[in-house]
């Protein structure tokens, strides 16, 4: 039982064999993700290295941390899972109840108690000092931080996929947790031995993110964990059958609002992958806090209620007062089909421009309008006004077009960076005439611009189309295309500069033309 359909994976599916061996069963959390077996592989790689491999800490200590953190995050699924695991590991129920309620009063070993205090005061000097005073070494501290990250990953995942507890759910107690006295954040984790230059996980990370995010270079004490993290990211990022690689990278680094995803007409696979990617972002976000290692990975999800809740449970932060379409949308939701026609009339240009922007072909865009509006109609019952209707509609049009684009031209991606992304240099640097609009008729001008826009690569074209032609705000365009604001800004600039380049020959006074030069100094 979850929000996602379950697909039977053969008994030879290695992650399930691993879970069977380690947990004694395959938790529903993972069964809920069988639409995308590779994300289960990503999670299994990470969980095996962190939880199932005993190095500094033993399994019981790790489960104990996971149990207390699940209770603190009010996560019934994980609380029940770790409670059951600790029972299987031989811890009495009475003792478990005391640990969950207030571990400081549960007669835990000083080391385990110190580890728990550490994870609650993550990222502070105070936490590290206390841990050292209790005799915890760097290996133990690193493992505790990794377990804290894993806890956030599992809690985010379980709420995101809507996993139902595997056993009778435990009541969630009111948890007593220590808080740091101040937020005197640490600067960097101490033990970071140097790894060989050609250590494969680091090469992969450098290639994927441009440079190695600090959170990884702070874990060199455990090359096996780095290997597992790189493997997990490889499983997660490399395939593009649901979200594109760039979309996933954007979610990892900039976050996404999961609550709005289902409203945007994404497929189940895409929503599932966004949930998983967000969970990995949460994992790395906890790690970078614990290790004092920068802020490369986003944590857009709140620690509580971080879920794609079922429609009837969703909190409604309705923004109807600012959405001019709200009244019309409500009428459609009430069964008034004429109101949908009215919405179509209002937004036909916007939808068309989105489709042309991505498909690059007016005929196909006109054809795709039917798909886009029909999809919008089908999903409108679930639209709850978290974004403006027009933004939501553009995101549906954009997804419709991307799907068509992939079917038609698998090589042209909306998202992937061209290899020359950083190398763009303007070539046309002659001054333009003072009033370019006087040089051509309206029809000639339109034709010049349309030709120039159509020649832009799709990822720049669609952003320029939405921002400069359709006049959407940056945030609105980012939201509609499911991209981060930095990505939108970068693409917009690149699109504008390329268009400027294409138009320049038409607007440079004829006596002023000379050979092109680059910007050099």
């Amino acid at each position, binding site marked *: 039982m979850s929000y996602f359909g379950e697909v039977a994976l053969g008994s030879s599916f290695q992650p399930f064999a691993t879970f069977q061996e380690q947990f004694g069963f395959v938790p529903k959390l993972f069964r809920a993700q069988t639409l995308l077996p590779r994300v289960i592989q990503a999670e299994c790689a990470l969980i095996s290295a962190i939880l199932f491999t005993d190095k500094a800490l033993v399994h019981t200590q790790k489960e104990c941390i996971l149990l207390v953190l699940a209770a603190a995050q009010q996560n019934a699924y994980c609380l029940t899972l770790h409670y059951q695991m600790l029972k299987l590991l031989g811890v009495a129920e009475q003792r478990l109840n005391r640990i969950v309620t207030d571990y400081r009063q549960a007669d835990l070993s000083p080391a385990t108690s110190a580890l728990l205090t550490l994870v609650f005061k993550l990222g502070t000097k105070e936490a590290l000092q206390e841990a050292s005073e209790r005799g915890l070494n760097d290996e133990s501290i690193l493992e505790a931080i990794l377990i804290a990250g894993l806890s956030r990953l599992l809690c985010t995942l379980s709420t995101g996929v809507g996993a139902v507890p595997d056993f009778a759910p435990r009541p969630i107690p009111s948890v007593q947790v220590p808080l740091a006295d101040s937020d005197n954040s640490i600067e960097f984790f101490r033990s970071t031995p140097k790894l060989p230059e050609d250590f494969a996980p680091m090469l992969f990370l450098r290639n994927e993110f441009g440079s190695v995010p600090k959170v990884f270079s702070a874990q060199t004490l455990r090359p096996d964990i780095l290997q597992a993290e790189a493997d997990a990211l490889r499983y997660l990022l490399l395939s593009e059958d649901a979200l594109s690689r760039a979309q996933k990278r954007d979610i990892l680094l900039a976050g996404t609002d999961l609550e709005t995803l289902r409203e945007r007409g994404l497929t189940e696979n895409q929503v599932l992958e966004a949930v998983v990617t967000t969970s990995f972002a949460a994992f790395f976000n906890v790690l970078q806090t614990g290790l004092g290692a920068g802020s490369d990975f986003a944590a857009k999800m709140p620690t509580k209620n971080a879920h794609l809740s079922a429609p009837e449970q969703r909190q409604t932060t309705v923004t109807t007062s600012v959405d001019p379409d709200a009244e019309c949308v409500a009428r459609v939701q009430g069964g008034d*089909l004429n109101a*949908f*026609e009215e919405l*179509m*009339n209002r937004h*036909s*240009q916007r939808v*068309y*421009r989105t489709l*042309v922007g991505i498909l690059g072909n*007016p005929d196909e865009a*006109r054809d795709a*309008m*039917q798909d886009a*509006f*029909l999809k919008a*109609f089908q999903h409108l019952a679930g639209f709850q006004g978290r974004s403006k209707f027009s933004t939501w509609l553009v995101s549906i049009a954009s997804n419709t077009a991307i799907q068509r684009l992939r079917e038609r031209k698998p090589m042209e991606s909306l998202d992937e960076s061209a290899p020359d992304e950083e190398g763009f240099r*303007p070539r*046309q*640097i*002659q*001054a*333009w005439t003072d009033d*370019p*609009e006087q040089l051509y008729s*309206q029809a000639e*001008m*339109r034709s010049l*611009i*349309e030709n120039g*826009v159509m020649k832009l690569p799709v990822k720049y074209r669609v952003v*320029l*189309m939405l921002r*400069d*032609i359709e*006049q959407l705000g*940056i945030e609105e365009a980012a939201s509609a295309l499911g991209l981060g604001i930095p990505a939108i*800004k*970068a693409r*917009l*600039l690149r699109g*504008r*500069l390329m*268009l*400027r380049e294409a*138009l*320049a020959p038409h*607007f440079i006074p004829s006596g002023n033309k000379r050979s092109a030069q680059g*910007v*050099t*100094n």
Partner: protein
Amino acid sequence: MITCADFMAEIGNYLEGDVADEVRHQLEQHLSHCQTCTVLVDSSRKTLKIVTDTGTFDLPESTFRPIAEKIMARIRSGEK
């Protein structure tokens, strides 16, 4: 003193009017002596203006109407 490369890194925000006063001052100081970047800014602004002002990629009502009718027919038939 900022270079053309520094200027290019900020040109997007500058065109959007989204830079702090201090940065704007530095960028404009650069512009005061750099003809190349001045041309880039001027022609980029003109590009933006003509793109915004010229009604491009319009879908004529006469083209949209039959599409809308097809969509509504499909919706209505699905409802019955």
